[in-house]
């Protein structure tokens, strides 16, 4: 007996294979594999393994799965992968640094209903789980931006092979501008669309501006949007740099 999740998965798989043939199938597979990595990530942290170490390992596997399984073009894949590793390093530093000042770990007062009857003294630091949440939430966005940038540039180099490095740079930033512009929307809608209910809650219960701008859940969401966005913005120059280094190495 198929339930809703099963049927929707089949439809998605069918559409992806129709569009991308074997590449589409691999893309669909990458989503499934990422789901398993996420579950393993959660399971290991719940067993008490250090959250940051587990998450960074998961992040490496998720980036590799998303980039290499999702795309058949080896050249742009490697470029995108190296670029995302650089971005990941920067973001890890940023997120760890921000945990103290943000103090958005755990749950807010708005979650009280979900927590009924649960023990909160579970002996796991929720601040570390928040670090994990924030890191994982950026991965999709930075790999997507790196792939879009790397694929766009590689297609361009293929179409007009007589382009100079300066022209590649120019086109790279031209593609980058638009990627950044639209990525902002993906992230903004992705985070806040899912929290429509929460916003209705804020308005219904007449939250003051001060109560809302300092609210734990709101701040954790907006911090994730902003950190992801910073990651996406960094992806553009870092991808161009990786392409240049790789082009230089190829010539030598």
């Amino acid at each position: 007996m198929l339930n809703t999740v099963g049927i929707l998965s089949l439809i998605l798989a069918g559409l992806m294979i129709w569009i991308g043939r074997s590449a589409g199938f691999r893309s669909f597979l990458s989503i499934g594999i990422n789901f398993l990595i996420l579950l393993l990530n959660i399971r290991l942290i719940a067993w008490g393994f250090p959250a940051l170490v587990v998450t960074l390992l998961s992040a490496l596997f998720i980036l590799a799965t998303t980039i290499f399984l999702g795309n058949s073009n080896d050249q742009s894949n490697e470029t995108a992968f190296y670029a995302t590793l650089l971005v990941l390093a920067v973001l890890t530093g940023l997120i760890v640094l921000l945990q103290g000042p943000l103090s958005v770990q755990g749950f807010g007062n708005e979650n009280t209903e979900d927590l009924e009857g649960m023990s909160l003294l579970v002996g796991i630091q929720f601040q570390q789980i928040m670090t994990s949440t924030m890191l994982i939430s950026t991965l999709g966005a930075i790999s997507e931006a790196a792939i879009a940038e790397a694929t766009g540039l590689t297609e361009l180099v293929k179409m007009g092979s007589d382009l100079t490095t300066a022209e590649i740079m120019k086109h790279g930033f031209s593609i980058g501008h638009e990627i950044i512009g639209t990525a902002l929307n993906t992230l903004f809608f992705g985070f806040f669309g899912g929290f429509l209910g929460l916003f209705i809650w804020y308005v219904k219960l007449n939250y003051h501006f001060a109560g809302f701008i300092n609210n734990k859940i709101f701040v954790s969401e907006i911090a994730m949007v902003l950190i992801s966005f910073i990651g996406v913005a960094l992806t553009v120059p870092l991808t161009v740099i990786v392409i240049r280094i790789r082009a230089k190495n190829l010539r030598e």
Partner: protein
Amino acid sequence: MIVGLAVVLFTKYDAFMYQQPVGQVTKVERQQTTSEVDNYQNHDHQTTQLVELKILNGSNRGQKLTVSNQYSDSQAMDNKYRVNQQVLLSIHTNRHKKISGTILDIKRDTVVVALIVTMVGLLIILRATGLRALLSLAVNVILFFIAVSLDVHRQGFGVLWIFGLLSLVFTAITLVLVLGWNKKTIASFLATIGGSAASLIIGMLVFTLTHNQGLHFETMEYVTQNPEPLFLAETLMGALGAVMDEATDIIVSLDQIVTANHKITGQEIWQSGKTIGQSIMGPLINVLFMIFMADTFSLMILYLRNGNGIGYAIQMNMGLGIVQSLISGIGIVLVIPIASMLASRFLKKEAINHA
């Protein structure tokens, strides 16, 4: 840069703008710590700390206040306060004009503003397109709140229509501001609306066919109205940005190719569109999937540490996020053929005109 720093510094001293009392932690004194073991053999500690605060605003400005605070190692809902942290307070004055108070929440606006300033700074470094994107974001935020107020006013009645209409306006404003008024924009707009509408209709059909089997709308968080239409509205909104991103990515990249090579045929454009789409659909679905899943981590771990099986934990916390990701994914894939087809018609003509 300097303006940005000034704004961040300002929020550190913006307590006077708050109506509710704000305090700054001046001293923290740790008292006793007790060991706790819960029903599931989880070991934790509860620590009491005496927090000395200086009130920064209002009629009690400058006065000192001492508050006792209890926190756990997990800090699931409590906080360990540190010196120099600013907090929001509730202050009571008794008959003898002695004040006492409780800490309501941490003041987090400085970090939020610092991050926003960083983002705006990056947009400025990356110049014009970024700024227009920011403007569209600002307009969208305002429209979003108008729509939310309208929904509250109508008590959730017609939520899908309100946010469906809002999506049309969002898409139009964002695309015009980011891409300007040209054929790229029209093609992206049509592709975005087509993809979103198709995925939502498919989602609703499947819900009806399976009689919502395996869907647990009662597990939705922060619900104050009928959950099913709200869920669909959330899905539509959540995916809209990504679908728009996809449509724009394909059409912008194709436009770059057409500009670099004027002799390209419509068939080649369609093929390139599918190649580009193929390689971004997986990553783009993963963007939303990661966002929807990462948000469940804290609850997942709490469930697991409370002796629940992983199957039950997934069902309760991740189920709806998975459905949301799947419907969004369907929209993201459907945009590829729509955008490629539109691009091969719109952009090709433009290229001929240029030549």
